[in-house]
């Protein structure tokens, strides 16, 4: 009977697989489905986007790599230290003024902050408490200009400008909780001419500076982000030792659309 060797081999077992065949029903269904797919393929012409996708497929890898590089660059730019920082306190325009110091930034003077009250501003005087300036770890130097801004009365009191040395951290209280905010903004150009002078009666609510990590870096509007006063304070203290900043040149405190800003450039 048997011409096959008594001991089956793996080839014999695999040959049994050849005998596994589907039924006629399977083939009927198979042919019907194939016919339907074939008709659909005949009717459906490839769109221009399909053709484009097929043609671009060969460039997918280089395009992807280029996109990854660009994204990495953008992320790096976004996450690097803010190149130029201005702290802004929004407030009604009528309550704001600006001060420009023409004094060059010296080795001991980082910024000057003036806090004044409008002499004939009853609304401001009544609704806004006189801001106080809190100085931390200050090597505070008495201002030489106090005599120029001596208050004549309680209503038009002028808080004299104070000169701070490097390492000084300044903290300003909010005018009120709803309007106080600090915003980081890039410096594109000075908003006031360098010879802009401040009248003694111009109201100034408050302004303070946050110093930059790298004043020579290219600024970008995308760096603008809300900061709370704690973060601004951290930024100030972190960058106060940056000598490049002090060598950077002039600074301007400006009034611009209801905001007081102090800028270095």
């Amino acid at each position: 009977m048997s011409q096959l060797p008594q001991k089956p081999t793996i080839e014999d077992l695999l040959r049994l697989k050849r005998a596994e065949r589907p039924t006629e029903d399977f083939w009927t269904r198979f042919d019907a489905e194939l016919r339907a797919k074939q008709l659909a393929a005949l009717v459906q012409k490839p769109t221009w986007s399909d053709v484009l996708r097929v043609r671009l497929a060969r460039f997918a890898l280089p395009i992807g790599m280029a996109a990854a590089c660009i994204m990495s660059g953008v992320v790096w730019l976004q996450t690097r230290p803010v190149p130029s920082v201005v702290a802004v306190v929004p407030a009604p325009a009528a309550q704001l003024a600006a001060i420009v110091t023409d004094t060059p930034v010296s080795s001991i003077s980082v910024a000057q902050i003036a806090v004044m009250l409008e002499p004939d501003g009853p609304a401001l005087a009544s609704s806004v408490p006189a801001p106080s300036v809190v100085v931390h770890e200050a090597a505070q130097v008495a201002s030489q200009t106090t005599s120029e801004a001596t208050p004549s009365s309680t209503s038009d009191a002028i808080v004299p400008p104070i000169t701070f040395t490097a390492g000084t951290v300044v903290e300003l209280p909010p005018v009120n909780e709803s309007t106080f905010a600090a915003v980081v903004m890039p410096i594109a150009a000075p908003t006031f001419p360098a010879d802009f002078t401040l009248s003694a009666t111009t109201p100034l609510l408050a302004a303070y500076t946050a110093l930059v990590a790298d004043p020579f870096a290219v600024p970008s509007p995308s760096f603008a982000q809300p900061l709370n006063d704690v973060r601004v304070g951290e930024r100030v203290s972190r960058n106060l030792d940056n000598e490049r900043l002090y060598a950077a040149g002039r600074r301007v405190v400006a009034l611009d659309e209801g905001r007081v800003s102090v800028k270095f450039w």
Partner: protein
Amino acid sequence: MSAANALVKPLVAASPDRRAEADADLAIVRRVQAGDVAAFDELIGRYRERVVGLLYQMTGNREDAADLAQDAFIKAFQSIRSFSGQASFFTWLYRIAVNGTLTHLRHNRNRTFFSLEKMQEDGTTTEMIARLTDAQGADRETFLRELQEKLNEALQKLSIKHRTVITLFEIDGLSHEEIASIVGCSVGTVRSRVHYAKQQLQAELAHYLR
């Protein structure tokens, strides 16, 4: 010679039959390329059983095999204008089918659905089953079912590459050269994969080889 018989008969790459088959295929392909769309049905009729059989062994279930075979025929139909005739139509079609199935298997590695087909026995198959049944001392039908399950399991334990090669070589009866052309690797690699796959299967099916 029917397609079913072609499944059983081991194929030889350069045999006159195969050459005549390839010539006939090419003539049909030229007709399709000239716009005779209905001529493609002849090609489907010639190869559907072999393609579905191959893909069934690769996937382990008939439904996936049918879907993948249909897709392969559609792809072949859509790109038949690019068929130059350098390789045989059969090799070209197999390459489309195998590549599509490999992609499918890679995307569905965790799928473990298998189907068992009824064996359509011929003389050789019947004799072998009888011999195996005697050796195991088991009921024929029960034994056959168990054997099919074990064979499927053992094949599915192979890697996709090894399963493809052993299926093309041992079950479909292609030569090493044809397999190398279809799979896109060297003949030496095909031999190596066949050898390794057999070793693995022998280990898995040792119970039936005593």
